[in-house]
């Protein structure tokens, strides 16, 4: 057994320790707090490298380490961690990105008063996320999952003085909680069915053959296999966390948090947790010959991909656009998992993590440079003012759009599309995916045109000309840009290293695979789609960017109804307000009415009866019993005054009485003896 497995727990432990220590620091210990957080994360990164190295050396490695948490009657609850390629690659990604984002935060948060609190929360978040990654038990995963939820709540609401931030934090917390109920139910059901929550336990885990067979055999409502039902429940948790279609509403609002938080939570890690969860329980999801759960995953992902991309077209807030883009890309990942398995989805997750955090950090750099301005209509011409930011942002944008050959997004998205085309159940996801790709390229072009090209917008209300961000922010951008480009080459059809690494195979380098017929067709198709979208976007928006007034979008002029629909996010929030919230309110007022009229009436009746009885009682008391007591009291008072004469507070009288009593008793004794 490799030594590293025994020390795997240290990876989340370092940031946790940093968070704990950071919580004890005073507000003024900024340097120490930042060094603690960064140091903890750097140590975690080093350990992750070691873990990753171990998995490289042994294909298909899966080591677990379990321990007993507590005994309850005759059941033992075990926790543990696992090291396999899936965990290792996530560890690498999470620790490395977290480290870069921490460093970036040094610059971004430099002027914030609650610097130490920020790093404390960030470390806590990192620890929880790493805990999810290494967990070998659905219970431990769930614990860390909730911790992630807590710390994202804290981080989104970091500027809690802003009402919008507080509301967004609440919204994120509550919306993801809806999904988490599903996860909790699924977990309990899984425990009741398989008797363990460990994923892998030398054949006894819930994701291993014997348990899966038992789960498949069970049938529940509507003829569904138990494994499908549990999978769907678990997937609802993933939907909440990863912002899939009905539960996506919290994610754009969460942009109220500081930008590094957006990058960390909404690009790299937390939203990826949902995808990771699906990947982790993939054996359960894909159990059986006809995996219904995976079909659901695919449909939800495909719908989300197009739906969110469409919304992104009509948004004006730079971070909001990227947020919707994130939702869309998460849909892609889910779709990838559904149609192509773990490797396809995870590959897009990794590449997306790099370029999306790059985009977020770049957006943060833009906002930082524009003194907090987030509306793209008020920007423009930043290409010259912020060359580094522009260059890296462009790299990220092209990776996201899937510009052919040299950008990672191309390869990972291509994988998904290829798998979707081969999906036996339906062709619709493939077309939805292509449409999503088109929309993605379009809205990214729109954004880049408005932000970086053209003239600066009316600077009536902007305070000073924009400026380039400090090195502590641009250097992480540059590193991420390089990785956003290079990460794609790990999984090209010519050299599918990543896929085979996850599946535990060897990967040959075959350039010919690139030119296989269906593969080439697909690549040409996607290239075409991207090219059309880019040029269309450029045509429409590069002209507008030159104008100083950008109040109306060209799209709005031509298609006002569609644009309004998109700008208002398909009125999802309003629909929720009109349905879910109102239903809830109606139910509450109904409960209130019940409480007041029925239960309250009953209580009042009882109290009235009691009151009546009490009055009767009182009458009896006053007329009958009191008189007797008065008589008795008079006697007592007489005795009492006699006693009180003796008890006059003078010690000497007591002593005299005692002496008298003593001598009388003695004399009586003598007289009796005599």
């Amino acid at each position: 057994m490799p030594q590293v497995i025994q020390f795997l727990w240290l990876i989340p432990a370092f940031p946790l320790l940093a968070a704990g220590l950071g919580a004890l620091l005073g507000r003024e210990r900024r340097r120490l707090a930042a060094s603690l957080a960064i140091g903890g994360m750097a140590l975690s990164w080093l350990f992750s490298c070691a873990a990753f190295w171990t998995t490289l050396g042994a294909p298909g490695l899966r080591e677990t380490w379990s321990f007993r948490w507590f005994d309850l009657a005759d059941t033992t609850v075990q926790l543990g961690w696992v090291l396999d390629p899936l965990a290792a690659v996530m560890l690498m990604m999470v620790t490395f990105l977290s480290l870069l984002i921490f460093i970036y935060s040094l610059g971004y948060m430099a002027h914030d008063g609650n610097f130490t609190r920020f790093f404390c929360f960030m470390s806590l978040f990192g620890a929880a996320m790493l805990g999810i990654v290494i967990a070998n038990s659905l219970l431990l995963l769930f614990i860390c999952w909730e911790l992630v939820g807590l710390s994202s709540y804290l981080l989104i609401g970091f500027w809690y003085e802003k009402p919008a931030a507080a509301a967004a934090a609440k919204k994120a917390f509550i919306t993801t909680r809806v999904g988490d109920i599903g996860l909790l139910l699924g977990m309990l059901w899984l425990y009741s069915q398989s008797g363990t929550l460990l994923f892998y336990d030398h054949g006894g885990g819930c994701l291993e053959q014997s348990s899966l067979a038992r789960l498949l055999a069970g049938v529940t409502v509507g003829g569904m296999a138990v494994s499908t039902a549990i999978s769907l429940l678990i997937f609802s948790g993933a939907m909440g966390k990863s912002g899939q279609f009905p539960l996506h509403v919290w994610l754009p609002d969460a942009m109220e948090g500081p930008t590094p938080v957006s990058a960390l939570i909404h690009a790299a890690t937390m939203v990826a947790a949902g995808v990771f969860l699906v990947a982790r329980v993939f054996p359960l999801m894909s159990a059986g010959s006809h995996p219904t759960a995976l079909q659901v995953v695919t449909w939800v992902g495909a719908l989300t991909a197009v739906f969110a991309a469409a919304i992104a077209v009509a948004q004006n807030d730079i971070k909001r656009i990227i947020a919707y883009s994130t939702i869309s890309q998460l849909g892609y990942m889910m779709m990838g998992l559904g149609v192509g398995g773990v490797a396809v989805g995870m590959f897009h997750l990794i590449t997306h993590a790099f370029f999306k955090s790059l985009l977020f950090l770049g957006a943060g750099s833009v906002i930082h440079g524009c003194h907090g301005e987030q509306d793209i209509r008020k920007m423009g011409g930043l290409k010259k003012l912020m060359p580094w930011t522009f260059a890296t942002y462009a790299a990220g944008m092209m990776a996201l759009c899937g510009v052919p050959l040299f950008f990672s997004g191309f390869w990972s998205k291509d994988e998904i599309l290829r798998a979707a085309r081969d999906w036996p159940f339906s062709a619709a996801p493939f077309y939805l995916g292509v449409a999503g790709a088109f929309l993605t390229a379009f809205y990214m072009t729109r954004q880049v045109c408005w932000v970086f090209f053209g003239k600066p917008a009316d600077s009536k209300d902007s305070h000073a000309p924009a400026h380039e961000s400090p090195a502590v922010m641009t250097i992480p951008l540059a590193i991420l840009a390089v990785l956003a480009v290079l990460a794609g080459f790990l999984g090209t059809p010519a050299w599918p290293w990543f896929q085979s690494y996850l599946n535990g195979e060897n990967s040959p380098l075959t350039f010919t695979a690139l030119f296989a017929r269906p593969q080439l067709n697909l690549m040409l198709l996607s290239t075409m789609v991207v090219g059309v979208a880019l040029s269309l976007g450029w045509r429409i928006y590069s002209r507008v960017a030159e104008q100083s007034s950008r109040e109306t979008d060209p799209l709005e002029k031509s298609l006002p109804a569609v644009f309004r629909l998109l700008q208002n996010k398909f009125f999802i929030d309003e629909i929720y307000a009109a349905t879910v919230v109102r239903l809830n309110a109606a139910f509450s007022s109904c409960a209130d009415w019940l409480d007041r009229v029925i239960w309250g009436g009953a209580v009042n009746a009882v109290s009235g009866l009691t009151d009546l009885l009490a009055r009767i009682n009182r009458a009896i008391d006053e007329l009958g019993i009191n008189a007797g007591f008065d008589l008795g009291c008079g006697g007592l008072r007489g005795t009492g005054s006699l006693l009180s004469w003796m008890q006059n507070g003078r010690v000497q009288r007591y002593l005299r009485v005692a002496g008298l009593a003593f001598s009388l008793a003695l004399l009586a004794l003598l007289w009796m003896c005599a």
Partner: protein
Amino acid sequence: MNPNLSHYLILSALLFSIGFAGAVARRSAILVLLGIELMLNAANLNFIAFWRYGANPQALTGVMFVLFSIAIAAAEAAVGLALIIAIYRQRRTTRLDSIDSLKG
């Protein structure tokens, strides 16, 4: 007349009664305490006398009892006098007949 046990006992009784009379008849709290000390001493004398005239003087029980009694009397005097001083500070008097707020 050669002193025998009853002489000591009479002496002790007299001492005890004198102490008792002082304790119940004098006003000053300090004198009351002094009277009580005299009563204690009378009891001590009894112990010593019975030890000396007792059947088994080798046992030293009486002597031991008196030694402990003396030690406890010292503690009692210290605490008692501290109380008197504290009361004096509160009420500017040590006359027992004016310290009677604890009455029925």
